[in-house]
């Protein structure tokens, strides 16, 4: 039994269910936006091709929404199921955004997606386009409330400690939803969602364009235009996520310095005023030795951390993990406890995320460049279409890496500085129970993930002319 602990299994399950859920969240928000844009183009330009586009990519939207909704119910239930002491401690604050999300956003999302799916021929085009805009908007609002809850865990605000009931109490709702962390987190997630959907549509279009000779002129144009719209969204999204990520990092340096130090692999404090070159170097790769508390095997780029962290060529001071650990030990009065986060995971996740963001930015520019005018270059450079095709999967890796930094970097806290993961877990959870649920979740997610990819491919191969749209039984038989 000592092989697994209740805490480790609960953490693993939370990570698994949340990462799986978050494959579909950004995909739904992003495809929602792109489909909305396509349908609006149809309304404005009255070109049937855009309608076909909205319907075709709408299929991908519906697929991701279908898996996104019920995996979201897991998120809401598992706080009580696996983290009951956490729920008791923060429920007064944390529950409200979740309930508000369901009430103001999720209802709208699910009602209007139903209206959108089944009423293509029943409303005026602009009214129908409005349905998908409402759905998209509501899904973004939905993310806002959920991230509001997460922002509280990252940067607790608007609370008082209720010693009698051993919990936190909400003192100011307005302050809770204007948490500065929420601004950074929400914009970062939203832009990330645009990139995710953009690259799924760019990638899938690229796969089809590899067979452009078979497709014929009309379909080639269809996929080229889809790729163009998505790549523009992807370009803007990657710019936005880089900018918001930078702002988030600036905030993090002050608010969760241990996370930042781990992201940058700074073991002992870097103080540029004490250096000859007056600038901090940036560690590209290296390895954290948890026993010696040293970051070893470093390859460094001079000046780079000053530029990235301080936005200047000189100066800057980054407090290292070893000093921070001592600080935290003093602050929380526990000399025997270490406050190091899982350094290597955070460090490399950051490199995957940041590197990936640069890559998608570059790919979006190149895709738009090669696709200009008649797009001959794009069709000729088959290697580039292959890269775009494979890049379909890239944003999912980037998003997951981002969440690993955010969540693991908060270690050992669930609510930063106030409540630890070890205190959060359900006291009555058992190892056999958790092994069972972990196993079934794993199998279920595996099956759904594979089915999702298989059906997305099938939609793609059937093509926009062959898609049987969601229509009601009556309409299919052509009765008025």
């Amino acid at each position, binding site marked *: 039994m000592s092989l697994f602990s209740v805490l480790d299994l609960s953490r693993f399950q939370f990570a698994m269910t949340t990462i799986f859920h978050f494959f579909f969240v950004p995909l739904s928000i992003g495809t929602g936006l792109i489909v909305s844009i396509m349908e609006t183009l149809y309304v404005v330009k009255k070109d049937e091709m855009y309608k076909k586009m909205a319907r075709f990519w709408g299929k991908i939207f519906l697929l991701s929404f279908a898996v996104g909704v019920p995996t979201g*119910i897991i998120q809401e239930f598992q706080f009580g*199921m696996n983290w009951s002491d956490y729920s008791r401690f923060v429920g007064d604050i944390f529950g409200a955004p979740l309930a508000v999300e369901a009430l103001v956003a999720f*209802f709208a999302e699910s*009602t209007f997606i139903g209206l959108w*799916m089944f*009423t293509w021929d029943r409303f005026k085009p602009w009214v129908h386009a409005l349905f998908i805009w409402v759905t998209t908007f509501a899904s973004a609002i939905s993310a806002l409330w959920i991230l509001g809850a997460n922002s509280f865990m990252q940067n607790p605000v608007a609370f008082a400690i*209720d010693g009698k009931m051993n919990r936190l109490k909400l003192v100011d709702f307005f302050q809770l939803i204007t948490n500065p962390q929420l601004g950074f987190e929400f914009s970062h997630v939203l832009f990330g969602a645009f990139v995710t959907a953009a690259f799924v549509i760019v990638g899938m279009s690229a796969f089809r364009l590899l067979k452009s000779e078979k497709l014929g002129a009309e379909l080639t144009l269809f996929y080229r235009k889809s790729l163009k719209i998505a790549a523009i969204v992807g370009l803007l999204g990657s710019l936005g996520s880089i900018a918001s990520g930078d702002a988030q990092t600036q905030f993090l340096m002050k608010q969760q310095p241990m996370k930042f130090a781990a992201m940058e692999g700074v073991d002992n404090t870097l103080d540029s005023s004490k250096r000859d070159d007056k600038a901090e170097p940036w560690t590209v790769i290296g390895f954290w030795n948890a026993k010696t508390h040293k970051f070893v095997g470093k390859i460094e780029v001079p000046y780079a951390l000053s530029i990235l962290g301080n936005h200047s060529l000189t100066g800057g001071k980054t407090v290292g993990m070893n000093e921070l650990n001592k600080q935290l030990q003093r602050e929380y009065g526990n000399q025997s406890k270490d406050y190091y986060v899982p350094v290597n995971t955070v460090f490399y996740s950051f490199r995957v995320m940041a590197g990936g963001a640069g890559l998608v930015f570059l790919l979006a520019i190149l895709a738009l460049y090669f696709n200009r005018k008649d797009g001959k270059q794009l069709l000729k450079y088959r290697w580039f279409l292959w890269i775009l095709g494979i890049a379909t999967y890239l944003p999912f890796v980037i998003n997951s890496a981002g969440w690993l930094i955010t969540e693991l970097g908060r270690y050992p806290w669930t609510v930063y500085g106030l409540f630890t993961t070890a205190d959060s877990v359900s006291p009555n959870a058992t190892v056999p129970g958790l092994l069972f649920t972990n196993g079934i979740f794993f199998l279920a997610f595996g099956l759904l993930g594979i089915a999702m990819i298989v*059906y997305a491919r099938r939609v793609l191969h059937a093509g926009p002319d062959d898609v049987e749209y969601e229509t009601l039984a009556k309409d299919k038989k052509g009765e008025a």
Partner: protein
Amino acid sequence: MSELQLLWFVLIGVLFAGFFFLEGYDFGVGMQFITNAHTKEEREQLYSSIGPNWDANEVWLLTAGGAMFASFPFWYASLFSGFYIMLFIVLIALIFRAASFEFRDQVQKYVSQRAWERTIGISSFVAPFFLGMIFTAMVKGMPIDAHGDIYGGFFDYVNIYSLVGGVAVALMSYIHGLNFTKLKVEGRLYDVATKQLKFAYPLLIAGEALFAVLTFFMTDLFQNNPVWEFIICPVIVVTTLLSWFASAKGKEGFAFVTSGLILAELVAFLFAGLFPRVMVGNNPKFSILIENASSSTYTLQVMSIVVLIALPITLAYQIWSFVVFARRFKSSK
């Protein structure tokens, strides 16, 4: 207990009642994928009847869960951790149900389409059955400790009372679904539903009588809140009779509304029996009370304002959506 706490206890009940009223019928329609639909066209009819609305119906469960977390964190924590495996089964059923609705539409091959449709049928039974078990086991009483944690054994969860409760909720959902089908389709499915309802209603009445007797002997609900329990109990039976009568007379709309009300009244019955507790401990000393399970007054106030504004708007567009899709799907035969 403050008025705000009482309001939120009632509101949680209303949200669960709303959930069972709405999702109850689409669970019932889902079960018919296995029991009643024989042809592809009939399955298409079934899907069309609930396609636009089942998703929003399910959000009622999410809202009820979220509202419970926000207003009664100690109830939420105790209930959800205590019924871990059963809630897990409900979650798995809901996941596969939702995915199957979408996937069945993507599949051309008959075999795999049937596989997804069978999944709809099974999960549409499993979800209400286990939810029924959870709610009845909850009111029956659980081994709760001073911290509010449940350390239950197998028979605390699975016993004659919770099994009858689970079957009752599944059967009520099935009847509710048959009534919905009769409103929405024509042809063979309509005839089969009519035939099945003739047997289902008397079965339900018998089940309700059994459930009432078991409640009287196995739980303290009647002793705990005699006035309300002795009122609601016959109301449930009368509603069932009304629904049966309406169904036999071909008043489909009335039959549908009343079969939904049965589910809502069952929630009322269980909640009234709980009051003023939220969790019943085998040792009454450790029962969790409305009074000390709730969020702070401030949080309840904020949430009340949000609900006051958002709920009417939500109801308005949800009802509008039902109006948009209020049509009968004709059979081609």
